[in-house]
Every structure is written in C-alpha cells, then in structure tokens.
C-alpha cells in the first residue's frame, strides 16, 4: 500500500502510449577540431510500461541520453516528444516541475544530500512539487517503509550502507509517483546481494506500470528488462524486445484503485487544474 497520502497520478491530457519519442536526436560537444558527438541521429520510441536496459561501452552516449530524457540536458538538434509534447516548447520552469512530478532519477553514486536525514532526502522532490511539510514527510516515510528503511528515517546517508543508500535513492525517485524512472547504473557501486535487492525493487516498481530506463554494464541484469538496447558511438547498435507491447504491465487499473482510496481528492483536483 504505497504512497497512500499522496494525491493520485493525474490522468494525462493526451493518453499517449508512446511516452517518449526521440527523432534524429543529436548531441554535439565542442566545435571544430574538438567536436565530438555523444548522440548522432538517434531515434527511439519508448512505450508506456517498458523496462529498457541500455548497454554499451563507456562514452557511447548512454548517460547523455538519460540526461536528455530526464530534461537535465538539451539535445543539439532533433526532436524529443515527452507524452506527445515537444520538449523544446516547454519552459525551463515547467521542465523543472516535470522533473519533480513525472521523472525519477536513480544514480550510480546515489546522490543523496549528506546534510539531510534520509527522510528529508526522500521527501525532496515533493518540496518542488509543492506539498506541505507533513504530507511530504508522511509520503517519504511510506516510501521508505516499502524499502524496509523505516527504522533509518533519521539517519544521515553516510550512516547507511551502499545498498541502503541506493534503496533510499529509489524511494526518492518514486516518492512523487512519477511515470518515468531513469536509472544510471543503479547497481554499479553495489555488491551482488545488494544489487539483486535493488533490481527486485525496480522490477516491482515496473510491475505497477512505471516506465523504467536503465543504463547498465552488467549483462546479467538484462533478464529483468522487457527491451535491451545496445549502443555504440551515439547510436543504436541492437534493439531487442523480450516482451511484446501487448504484455507490458498496465498502470491504469492499479492506479485508479489507489485514487479511490486517496482521501485528498480536493487537493488532486487543485493540482490537476494547475497542470
């Protein structure tokens, strides 16, 4: 029973099955002699509910791709449609809002704020979504208990093991109930036991209908994915779907159930209007 106190996910204005669509995307670094391409004429369509693993050698543009999808970076040219809307037309302010509400980031080095306790770290995206403090902390607490960290709420990141920190980071990524989870080598700094726990958590999140895009170097993890993409020099080398589009988990049923249970219907109506 995750995130009971959170307002439910809002229905999309355009229910687009293609949640992410990248066409002719190019990312160039430097000019002239120093010019190099992290992404070169990159085309990719991601459907709602996919669990994508992106593999490839270092420097092939995996992280750049994630940063662009996560609205932290801009492509030099090409088009990026997020839920059918061109990202180029979204203001920086709304992009930040989208990062808080629709996108969850998981990093290799966890990226938790050392000065804040785990609870506040997890609640961080909700600050920028704009919830009051009590709601924030309650949601964060719920998210943490899902990852069996409820006893560690007031610990600081440095007091936790790597696996625990990464679970806290995942809790932060899902606390605002986003649609897309972007994971950049989430198991890169973990031992095999901790990484299998993390992968099971990601699998569970995926089963609820979330779209996950994960970069990894570990071929053993591809068993979790519904689609495996191999990248080379800024473009796709191979693209294999292991699960057909029809069999992807659907989010609508489970989420609508949750919505009925939520007591905060007025709040959700308000946020919906804002959008």
């Amino acid at each position, binding site marked *: 029973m995750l995130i009971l106190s959170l307002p439910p996910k809002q229905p999309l204005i355009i229910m687009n099955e293609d949640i992410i669509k990248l066409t002719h995307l190019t990312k160039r670094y430097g000019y002239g002699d120093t010019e190099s391409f992290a992404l070169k004429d990159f085309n990719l369509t991601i459907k709602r509910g996919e669990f994508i693993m992106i593999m490839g050698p270092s420097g092939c543009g995996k992280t750049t791709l994630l940063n662009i999808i996560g609205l932290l*970076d801009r492509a030099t040219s090409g088009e990026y449609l997020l839920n059918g809307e061109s990202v180029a037309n979204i203001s920086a302010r709304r992009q930040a809002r989208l990062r*808080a509400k629709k996108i969850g980031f998981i990093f290799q080095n966890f990226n938790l704020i050392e*000065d804040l306790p785990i609870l506040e770290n997890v609640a961080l995206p909700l600050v*920028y979504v704009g919830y009051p403090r009590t709601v924030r902390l309650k949601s964060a607490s719920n998210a943490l208990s899902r990852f069996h960290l409820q006893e560690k709420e007031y610990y600081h990141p440095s007091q936790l093991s790597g696996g625990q920190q990464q679970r806290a980071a995942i809790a*932060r990524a899902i606390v605002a109930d986003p649609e897309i989870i972007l994971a950049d080598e989430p198991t890169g700094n973990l031992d095999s036991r901790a990484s299998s726990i993390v992968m099971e958590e990601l699998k569970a999140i995926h089963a609820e209908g979330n779209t996950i895009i994960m970069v990894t170097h570990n071929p053993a993890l591809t068993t979790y994915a519904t689609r495996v993409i191999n990248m080379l020099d800024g473009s796709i080398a191979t693209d294999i779907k292991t699960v057909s589009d029809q069999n992807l988990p659907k989010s609508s049923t489970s989420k609508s159930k949750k919505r009925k249970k939520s007591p905060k219907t007025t709040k959700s109506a308000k946020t919906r209007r804002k959008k």
Partner: protein
Amino acid sequence: MSLLFRTHLSLACASIRENRTRSFLTCLGIAIGIASIILILSLTGSISHLISREIKDVGANLIVVRPSSTKDAVTSLVGELTGTNSYQTSNLSLSDIQALSQVPGVTAVAPISLSAHTITDENNTIASATILGTTPDFTAINPLTLRYGSFISNDNKSNSVVIGHMLSLLLFNTSNPVGRTLTFQGQRFIVIGVLEEIKDYINFNNIDYDHALIMDLEALAAITGDPQIQQINVRTATTGHLATIAGDIKSVITTNHSGDTNFTVSYGDAITHPASNLLNIISGILAIVAGISLVVGGIGVMNIMLVSVAERTHEIGIRKSVGASSHAILLQFMLEALILSMFGGFMGVVLGYILAFLFSIITPFTPYISWQILLVTFLTSIVVGIIFGTYPALKAASKNPIESLKHYR
C-alpha cells in the same frame, strides 16, 4: 509559493546553524556597520533632542538672528576642523542691536559675541579664555543660575564681569572670587558673579559657559574695537506673532545693512539646526565610516555565500535533478543571505545601543531610541542582504545540474 518560501526559510536556518562560527563572524561584520549607524543616529538624535528641550525651557517666544556664512562650505569646513575659524566673520553690528530693540513686540535683545583673549589676575594667566560679549538682557532670554554674586546690569556694565565656574577655578583658584579683579587688555574688571556649573554642554548658543567670561558688549567694543557678533537672541512679548515679528526684524536689519540680506532670522525648531557645525561634520564623517564598514560587512556576506554555493554545488545538482527550478535555488540562497544580514542587523542594534549607553556614561549624551532609527537600520540590513546576496544566489541558480552532480566536496 509561500510554501516553498517557508521550506527555504527553514533550510536556510539549518544551513546557517550548521556553520555556526562562520555565520556568526559574517553577521558580526554587518553588526559592526549597523552598530556604528545606531551609535551616530542615537547621539545626533540625543543632541537635537537636548537642544529642542532647552528651547522649550527658554520659551517659545524666541527669535534668533545669525549672520550667513560668507565663506563657501569647503573653506568653513576646513576652518572648523583645524580650529582656526571658531569665530566666524560676522556682518551684524552694534547698531543692529539698537535697531532691533525698537521693533514692536520685542522685549529683550541679547547679542552673542564670542572671542578669545588673554586674561590675567595677580597670579594666573589664561591664554585664550572665551569672552562672551552681550547685554544685561542676556539672562532675560537665557536664564543662567549664578552660584555667587549677580549678573551684570545697566548700572555696572562698564567695569563688571561674570565668569564661569571652571574659569573661576583656573584664574583665582577659588569658586568664589566675587569682588576680586582681573585684567583684560590692560583694563581692570570686577568679578561680580560666578555661574553655577553647567552639566549640559550642548545649547543653541553654542557656548561653553563653564569656561566663559561674560561682559557687556559695549565695554568689550571699547577695548577690542568692533566686535564680531555671532548671534542675536530676541525675545518677544507673546508667542503668537513670531512670523510677523521675524519679518519686521528682517526688514529692519536689511535697512540697516543698506539692502544686504546676508543674515538669517529663525524661530521655533529651525533654531536648533546649526547648533554645532563641528558636531554635524563629525557625525557626517562617522556616518561615512559606518557606511564603509557596512559595505565591508556586505562583502563578507557575499564572500561567505559564494563559499556556501561552491561547497554545496553537489547539493544544487541533486536539487535540480529532482525538480528544483533555477528560481527555487535562487530563492533558497537569497533567503540565506538575507537571514545572515538581518541577524547581523539585529546584533548591530543591540551592540549599537550598548555602545551608546557606555558612551553616555562618560559624556552628557543620553542615548536616543526611536522607531525611525530601528526602521532605518532594519531596512539597511535588508538592502545590504539583497545587494550582496544577489550575485551568489544567481551563481547558484545558473549552475548546470549535470556538471554540479559530478562535483564532490
């Protein structure tokens, strides 16, 4: 928006608490600047307060005629500072006094002519005693308490003087020299009165009575030639027609001066204004010093905020990646700078008043507290916070999230 504001407020407080020593030292920089402003405002406030109280005591029916300065501001400022020009050149004359006493509604006219001369008795010599040339009317306008003897009158004004308490001690080594004689410019004078010791050094006549020798202006003129009259105090019968009488006085003197209007006629609160030029200059210079220290304090805030931004680059990266807009980051660091400077301002107010009270122990000033002073310092610290917090906050807000995430402490 208000929610984000509150969150950032607690964040900023947490961050300031975390670096307690650093924040305290930064605040101290601001506090010193604010404290000096408080000190100056409280002292100048106290002085004008004192003078307006004195004028209230003297009575509202007072008109003061002063010569306009014939020198430009810079020359007189240099003169004031070097002490060469304590008694400025005047264009008021003895005939003006005669003319003024004829103006209807005027009950008393007392000129003030200050000069410095050597006076001697059998044993002691005072090199430059303050000589106040006036008329017996002086006490009618400015009641002076005498410790011994009496004030000069029309009967004895040609050879009698009244001296201040300290001058009496210096010259005669006694507090009661009534009846003894002193020599001034070869002329002998009888001391007929000694003033009570005066605690308030500040008065609208700008006279240090304790060290002064008071004598009749005509007697003074007979010895030293044409005396310089720095001020003429005029008392009127009623308080009702000050403006018309002031107008009459103006026209009388203008006629007397064959058309020149190189003097000012003031009454009411305007009298307090040029109470002491020197004091104004000193407080002006102090204000400049306070302003400079405030700027230095502000630079301290900016410096610490830049350090804070650099230290927390990684945090900024994380915040941006989980959805903080540049605006939100700007607000966060702006608030932190504002809290620093406002806390410094608060410390400065406390420090400033402590200093002002300490200062009042050794001087006749009493610290003057008003809500205007508090408002001015409060606004000043806010302005300093905004001015010096903007650049670091902008720097924080413009950080690239990807670069920031790679940044480690």
